[in-house]
């Protein structure tokens, strides 16, 4: 296999965007092409989840490649639920590593806010099993809530720990111009004060409003290239050194130990093995905190902390910027926002900035190895990536 480098990166603001989906995908791609100093690519992958259903657009990739005037480059959409983004990067990785293409553009877009909040919730709920979960009114927050309840009972995680994740990620998002939520929150305001129940009502008990990611529109892009191309461009060398993917049962109730996220464990182990590093070597990580509990659980399954001890590390401040292993420096899904199909690429975008030393106020000092975990369904399809700074 050939080595694969990230040579360009771009992102839109994550918020409510009032322009067409194809432009949400094309805009960050344009920025990434400028960043890389390229005008042509061999192939385009577009990560997206809901175009046909939410935005009345199918064949999104054809629209994007033409908007960017990149024809006749090949183009296709990669859909893998909320893990579409990292899946598209993985597909681009395969194309370059195999020698099929030299330069591949991986962009992404989601425009969830074209529909109302309840319809968006229903759309995301279609990820669950159609006959054994969806018909009951199961939503992703409800699956996360039932998981949280078990986690609390088994490991002593409390609502305070969950709120600490939210506070940390909101603080990080204040340092990220492109984040959806620029809103300082405090434990007092969302948990302790008499108004907390109004500020922070239950969505699915025990998860509250500030335990759940916002519904966002947005897009992000990275450009992958072979070593030969990457070394000609005058950019810091960031290599996509490891990819891993694993699946788990579609129905959450079928898992032998319902507090385990085996797909995260498997995907992370594969990615670390391929990159030849250990979780202890990672300087900065992007985890899929669609719900605050997931940041804690994934930090354990990825191997940064022992199972059941993620919340203790959080308490000690080890996951803050400046801590032992800063997690979700751009605000995470919690505060940067979660345009489902675009999230995996946005995570990679943040790691690329961090490893290049371009993350400004939220820069992790001397970051050389970065990790992303993109979590599809309720942990039934997970893609993990490891990035390395090489020069």
């Amino acid at each position, binding site marked *: 296999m050939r080595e694969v480098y990230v040579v360009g990166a771009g992102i839109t603001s994550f918020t409510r965007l009032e322009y067409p989906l194809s432009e949400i995908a094309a805009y960050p791609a344009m920025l990434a092409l400028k960043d890389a100093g390229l005008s042509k690519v061999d192939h385009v992958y577009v990560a997206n989840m809901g175009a046909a259903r939410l935005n009345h657009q199918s064949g999104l990739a054809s629209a994007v490649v033409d908007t960017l005037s990149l024809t006749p480059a090949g183009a296709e959409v990669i859909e893998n639920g909320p893990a579409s983004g990292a899946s598209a990067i993985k597909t681009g990785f395969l194309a370059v590593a195999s020698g099929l293409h030299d330069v591949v553009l991986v962009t992404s877009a989601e425009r969830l806010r074209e529909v109302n909040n*309840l319809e968006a*919730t229903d759309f995301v709920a279609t990820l669950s099993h159609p*006959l054994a979960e969806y018909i009951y*009114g199961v939503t992703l*927050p409800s699956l996360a809530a*039932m998981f949280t*309840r078990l986690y609390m009972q088994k490991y002593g995680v409390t609502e305070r720990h969950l709120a600490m994740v939210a506070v940390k990620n909101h603080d990080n998002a204040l340092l990220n111009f492109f984040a959806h939520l620029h809103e300082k929150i405090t434990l007092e305001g969302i948990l302790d004060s008499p108004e907390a129940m109004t500020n922070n009502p239950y*969505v*699915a008990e025990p998860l509250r409003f500030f335990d759940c990611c916002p519904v966002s529109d947005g897009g992000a892009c990275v450009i992958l290239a072979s070593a030969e191309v990457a070394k000609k461009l005058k950019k810091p060398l960031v290599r996509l050194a490891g990819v891993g993917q694993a699946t788990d049962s579609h129905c959450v109730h*079928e898992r032998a130990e319902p507090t385990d996220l085996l797909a995260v464990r498997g995907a992370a182990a594969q990615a670390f093995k391929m990159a030849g590093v250990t979780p202890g070597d990672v300087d900065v990580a992007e985890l899929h905190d669609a719900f605050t509990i997931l940041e804690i659980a994934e930090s354990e399954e990825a191997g940064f902390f022992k199972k059941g001890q993620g919340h203790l590390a959080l308490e000690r401040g080890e996951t803050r910027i400046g801590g032992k292993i800063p997690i979700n420096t751009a605000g995470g899904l919690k505060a940067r926002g979660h345009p489902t199909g675009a999230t995996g690429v946005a995570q990679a975008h943040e790691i690329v900035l961090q490893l290049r030393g371009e993350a400004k106020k939220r820069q992790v000092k001397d970051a050389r190895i970065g990790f992303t975990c993109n979590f599809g369904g309720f942990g039934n399809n997970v893609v993990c990536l490891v990035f390395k700074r090489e020069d």
Partner: protein
Amino acid sequence: MALEIYAYRCKKCGQLHYPFRMVCKKCGQNEVFEFDTVPLPKKGKLLTFTTVHNLPPDFNVAKLGLGMVELENGMRITGQLKIPHPKFGMAVAGEVEIVREAEYSKNYGMVFYPG
């Protein structure tokens, strides 16, 4: 006639599956339609639960109880709860009822009451 939710038993090794699978997860048996349907038991204990306040548009209620139940034969199922104060491990008993109605469709599923 009482309504049932069915599990699928592999004709070769006897492994039970819920929900349906085309290939047995234990022995890998993959002959077409080589599964027997077996009604799931209706009594069990509550594994975990939640109350959802933000429901899809098909549900005309303010909130809804959901839970996962371990049934008497050790199999698990996700279902709706009509239990005022759910607790870990409490005994529950299920009924098959309409759980979701849209314009042209009715979906039947397991609803659990205190057992």
